[in-house]
């Protein structure tokens, strides 16, 4: 897909410029990636300020590692993997701390707020969009992560595989299963996924 080829070339170019101490490349990378990146951390930590901090940290780490960046590996995948690890470490530390403080109840609940997108974010969306959000949030975590990275953030299979630490083939399986589950959930609420529905959408778009 030419989109993804273009992406790969862009990231490789920035990696080369970063290696040459070019801070403007970091700015370009930031402009390109920050928005979907903080959103992806947000889904893990459930707190916008924390998500901002982790995303910020990830960019600084990329800068610190600029001398050893491999242009053949996607900078975007590196960023996503970095924030993911940072977020998981933070959640783990938080759970450990809670455990030490003997507050077993709260950890499980607040560590991963699994609510579908909160109501106030979705006021304006159509009911179908809300349902979709809800169904996505109900997917098993790995499927959900693969689907969001692929469908909404536009990462290639290889990038997702790097982020999630699995094979590209596995990414494909996650995606197919996620789409299957979404289809069955949609038909359970009477939404028939058909050419008719899509043409309606096309008219609205």
């Amino acid at each position, binding site marked *: *897909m030419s*989109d*993804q080829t*273009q992406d790969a070339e*862009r990231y490789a170019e920035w990696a080369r410029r970063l290696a040459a*101490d*070019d*801070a*403007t490349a*970091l*700015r*370009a990378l*930031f*402009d*390109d990636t*920050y*928005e979907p990146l*903080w*959103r992806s951390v*947000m889904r893990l930590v459930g707190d*916008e300020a924390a*998500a*901002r901090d982790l*995303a*910020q940290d990830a*960019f*600084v780490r990329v*800068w*610190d590692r600029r001398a050893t960046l491999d242009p053949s590996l996607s900078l975007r995948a590196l960023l996503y993997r970095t924030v993911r690890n940072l977020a998981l470490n933070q959640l783990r530390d938080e759970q450990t701390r809670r455990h030490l403080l003997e507050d077993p109840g709260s950890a499980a609940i607040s560590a991963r707020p699994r609510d579908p997108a909160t109501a106030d974010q979705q006021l304006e969306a*159509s009911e*179908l*969009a809300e349902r*979709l*959000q809800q169904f*996505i949030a109900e997917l098993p975590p790995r499927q959900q992560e693969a*689907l969001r990275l*692929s*469908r*909404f953030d*536009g990462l*290639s*299979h290889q990038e997702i595989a790097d982020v999630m630490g699995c094979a*590209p083939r596995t*990414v*494909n399986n996650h*995606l*197919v299963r996620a*789409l*299957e589950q*979404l*289809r069955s959930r*949609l038909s359970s609420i009477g939404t028939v*996924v*058909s*050419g008719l*529905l*899509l043409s309606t*959408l096309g008219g*609205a*778009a």
Partner: protein
Amino acid sequence: MSAPRRPLPPELQSELSQHTGGHELAQVWELLALADPVPGSSEADAVWSRISADIARGRPLLTPVAGSAALPPTLNTPRRAPSVQSRSWRPAVMAIAATLALLVGTGTWAARPVVVNTPLGQQESVTLPDGSVAELNAGSTLRYRAGLRGRLGLPAAVRELELEGEAFFDVVPNRTPFEVRTAEARVTVLGTRFLVRARADERDGTSVAVESGRVRVTPQGAASEVAVVLQAGQGTVVGRGVTAPTPVSVVGVERLTLWRRGGFALVDQPLDAIVRELERRYALDIGLANVPVGEERLSVYYPDRPSIETVLSDLCTPRGLRFSRTSRGYEISPSVETPLPTP
């Protein structure tokens, strides 16, 4: 609602083509466009300023220009600066107003304009993606496409920026022309230091002054034959709605760019233009409602950051005007004792 914008990844496409009901799954993929998060960055400007503070150790990519201090000598040198400066730079003081505006729904990353906006009372130095530096005077807005790239994220034929307000540019030479667009003019360069002033509330339109190098100035919508080429120390003006710049004249670039060093100077401007500039510089409201603004043109020159009352006093006294404090600034009015309309 945004249109579906992510094509099926090739691996998924080939998988679905062999899959029972794969067609429906592909439609679910399309339908998911409805659930795509609405873009809206989480304080990207603030986060970027912290990142640049972290990485640049005293030479952030976006630097507030201290109002009264002389410019640091590193300003025009390449990005990574000696760390000597680091202790004097305080990230907490920064109030960067750069915002990344996202074009919703196009789905093209490169269509995102980067907007740098200096609040009233504040100046900022911005390092552009190509390494060039733009110093923005207060109340100015600079827009450019992310990475100074073209519409589809391809390398652009022109490094193109839009300016409303006033900025001094130090352009890193490369093979791509650098072009500043204002409402009235296009200013095209290959690598130089120059000033563009395009205040929406001023009658003069856009004025350009060159400190070093050469720039070409073309009125918006005009053919390049009417362009003028400026050398160091020269300036021109493109008025509103005109088809040709004024003849090239010798200008005091040092004086015109005094704001960069904390001073305040304007050359040959009507009283109201000077007052508007004071408002921007000091982030105040200055009422001028009952004062007839004649054809008189004034020049003011304060090499060090003057107090606002000093400037007002110097402007008012010889003209039989007086000024008084208001809740948001000052009000200039005809003096009761000497109600002469002209000095």
